């Protein structure tokens, strides 16, 4: 097996037994990244010097202390809207093109304790606004399984980097599906925690009441290990909650005896690709064979999720992006007075989708419209959340498709904002309700594109996702190797 095909756990075992060194692993992955980048464009920055130094530090840790921690010496990447001190953080926007993070996100600080290896910062839709990475100011990424197609988004670069074997794991952010949907498109595992599980301090804000850090890896087991490393309350994020963080990986098992699974009928609707539906249904059957009980159920307000999302999120966007005004950092375009500096910097710095969302959010929160839009959307949010809480009094997990289709072609939806928004139809409700979810590869379409199944768990019951996802992945035993 080649080094880029290893899972985090396999690589960690080889490093601990000194079969390979962190430097050897890092050099192999840097080489692969350099070869593939002209095709895939997963990265906005490859941090080669930093990576080799990180690897050296990890190798010293192995020499000094023996077996290291589970992520010591493991190469990873972070979406370019996550702050790592001294490294660029552009959010794929021209307005932050020269911005260097003056401090690190709390989640990244927690990770660095283990001495992993930073390979680079990955591409995204500008400010994480999109479902394809086509909204990046620096050009789209490509799906390693079919270079004509998008990797999904907004964390498309991170998903593509893991799928291509540039890194063994990666971080994204998920506000409406931005980790789960690209994971589904690229044939990797993508996890969004409960709102409040992982600190948001040091993530460039999109919709603050919806944003969470997310994790990509080849296996559910790897994701579980990484989740334990970065979770937990943080005094710099008032919305992170002080709940104990389990050692998730220790809870995994091979069967699902006693697990109660609900299938929300609103998620199996016309318009979903037939192959996606069949693949998800066979995954559900597999989980039943593993010992779970399965029952159809209803989330009656689910159909309002996307509409509520495209009010709440833009309202928060319009507030969050008001900080980019050309004064303290980022692009500054001169004008004859202060107001012109604001207008000129923002008009030249933001791309079309950021502008659309700022406009929608400004309108939906303005006097005379806030009651009709924002207040109604918050009511929808309350009802959607109540649906989930009620469902979870009976079920341990809910199962749906992650996305209505496999990866679409570059350019296919880029001129139709609304049709792009519909790519998130199955993922947004989780952010609206704050519940955790994971996308696990469950099949391949007839033209070779990966398909993902979404598992949904109660608030702060991430272990249900990992237990269900791990048993499913083990028993499906899919081999998803992109041919690039």
């Amino acid at each position, binding site marked *: 097996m080649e080094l880029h095909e290893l899972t985090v756990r396999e690589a960690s075992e080889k490093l601990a037994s000194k079969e390979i060194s962190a430097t050897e692993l890092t050099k192999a992955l840097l080489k692969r990244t350099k070869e593939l980048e002209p095709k895939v464009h997963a990265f906005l920055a490859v941090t080669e010097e930093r990576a080799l130094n990180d690897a050296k530090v990890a190798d010293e840790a192995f020499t000094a202390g023996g077996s290291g921690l589970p992520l010591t010496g493991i190469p990873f990447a972070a979406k370019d809207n996550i702050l790592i001190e001294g490294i660029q953080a552009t959010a794929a926007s021209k307005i932050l093109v*020269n*911005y260097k993070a003056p401090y690190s996100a709390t989640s990244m600080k927690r990770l660095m304790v283990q001495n992993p290896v930073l390979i680079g910062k990955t591409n995204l839709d500008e400010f994480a606004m999109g479902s394809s990475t086509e909204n990046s100011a620096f050009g789209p990424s490509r799906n390693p399984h079919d270079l004509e197609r998008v990797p999904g988004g907004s964390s498309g670069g991170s998903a593509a980097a893991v799928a291509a074997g540039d890194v063994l794991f990666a971080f994204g952010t998920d506000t409406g599906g931005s980790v789960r949907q690209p994971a589904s498109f690229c044939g990797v595992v993508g996890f969004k925690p409960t709102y409040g599980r992982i600190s948001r301090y040091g993530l460039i804000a999109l919709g603050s009441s919806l944003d969470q850090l997310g994790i990509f890896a080849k296996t559910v087991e790897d994701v579980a290990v990484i989740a334990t490393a970065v979770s937990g309350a943080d005094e710099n994020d008032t919305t992170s909650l002080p709940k104990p963080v389990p050692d998730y990986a220790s809870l995994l098992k091979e069967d699902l005896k006693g697990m109660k699974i609900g299938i929300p009928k609103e998620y199996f609707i016309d318009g979903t690709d037939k192959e996606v539906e069949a693949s998800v249904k066979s995954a559900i059957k597999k989980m039943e064979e593993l010992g779970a009980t399965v029952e159809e159920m209803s989330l009656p307000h689910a159909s*309002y999720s996307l*509409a509520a999302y495209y009010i709440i999120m833009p309202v928060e966007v319009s507030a969050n992006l008001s900080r980019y005004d050309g*004064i*303290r950092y980022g692009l500054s375009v001169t004008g004859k007075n*202060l107001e012109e500096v*604001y*207008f000129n910097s923002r008009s030249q710095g*933001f791309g079309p989708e950021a502008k659309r969302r700022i406009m929608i959010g400004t309108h939906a929160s303005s006097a005379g419209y806030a009651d009709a839009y924002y207040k109604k959307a918050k009511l929808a949010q309350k009802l959607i959340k109540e649906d989930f809480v009620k469902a979870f009094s009976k079920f341990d997990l809910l199962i749906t498709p992650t996305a209505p289709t496999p990866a679409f072609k570059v350019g296919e939806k880029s001129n139709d904002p609304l049709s792009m928004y519909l790519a998130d139809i199955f993922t947004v409700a989780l952010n609206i309700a704050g519940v955790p979810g994971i996308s696990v590869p469950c099949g391949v379409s007839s033209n070779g594109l990966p398909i993902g199944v979404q598992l949904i768990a109660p608030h702060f019951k991430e272990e249900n996702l990992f237990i269900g996802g791990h048993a499913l992945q083990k028993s499906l035993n899919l081999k998803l190797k992109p041919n690039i």
Partner: protein
Amino acid sequence: MPLTIDEVDKISKLARLGFTPDEKQKLQHELSQILNYVEQVKNITSNSEVNLDEDPDSINLMRDDVAETMEEPEKFLSQAPAREGNYVKVKSVLE
């Protein structure tokens, strides 16, 4: 309800964004289409009420407001487009 060009103008001023006449026309169409979609939330019938000032399910965790000394202010100041010493320089607010 579709937006008028005047409304697009008004929103763009509130948002501190400038657009060309062509961009405004395109936005008028795109924003109207998006608003038309999200307006379905108006169909929700429920006796439930939302209180926008308070979310009973969530608590903010506050910490003591203690001033800290920044070790390396240069990391922040060096990103400012214009500065004078340890200050960020801006155009005058009042004319």
